[in-house]
């Protein structure tokens, strides 16, 4: 546990702007340990950019770097993302 860590709820606004759908209820599957979790339950760290990590194995699932309207999303550790549109 890291006292600085947040969860996916903390970036719900950003995710909704990027994906145009509610993302905290989306389910991401980790490509390292296979665990499937709601994005709202993922661990969020703020470094130079945002990193979303698997709550079970700490694998970096998604990275988000923002430059105003330009946003880079890295899906480094997500095997599948399930959303409801």
């Amino acid at each position, binding site marked *: 546990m890291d006292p600085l860590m947040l969860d996916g709820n903390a970036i719900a606004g950003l995710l909704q702007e990027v994906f145009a759908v509610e993302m905290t209820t989306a389910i991401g599957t980790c490509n390292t340990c296979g665990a499937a979790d709601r994005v709202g339950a993922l661990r969020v760290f703020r*470094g*130079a*950019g945002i990193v979303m990590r698997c709550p079970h194995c700490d694998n*970096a699932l998604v990275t988000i770097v923002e430059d105003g309207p330009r946003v880079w999303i890295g899906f480094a550790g997500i095997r599948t993302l399930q959303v409801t549109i």
Partner: protein
Amino acid sequence: MPPIISRGFRGRRDDAPSDRVPPGQYVTRDFPVLSAGPTPHRQLEQWDFSIGGEVDEPRRWTWEQFRALPSEEVTVDIHCVTKWSKLDTVWQGVSVDTLLDGVETAAEYVVSFCDGGYTTNLPLDDVTGGKAWVAFAYDGEPLEPEHGGPARMLVPHLYFWKSAKWVRGLRLSATDEPGFWEVNGYHNYGDPWQEQRYWGD
């Protein structure tokens, strides 16, 4: 729609001479803690620092051996890509020149690798010639884990994501290997004075 100005909001910033503040940066007296992942807690007995990759002979130091190396106190300005700059920060560290002294290599690049898996890449030229340290103390105190302790890279002429926290070694390479943030949107080199924050800048 341009953003609405909120009456009286200033944020927590200091004024500073503009020749010390790169474009787009704001000066802070705080030391914000930013991290791509959970803070590792590495026991000193299990810590080592290694130099490997394309070198004639890999090197390794235990904590005692590392701390026995000549170190120096440096005062530098640091610039985070998230727009805060901190002036006159004081560090104690071992120069990378000391660590590479006598190392034979044709490599032109290094990758810093760390506890927790973070990596960042640099040209070898940018960590030699008195430009980089492996720092173990900040402001007169042992470096705290949340700021990268026991030891972190200190490469103040580039954006601070290049100063990897919890560093465990340098891997020298003939080819450039973009690291964690470099593959995910941040600039491969990161010169704050040219505002090289993102891909394509």
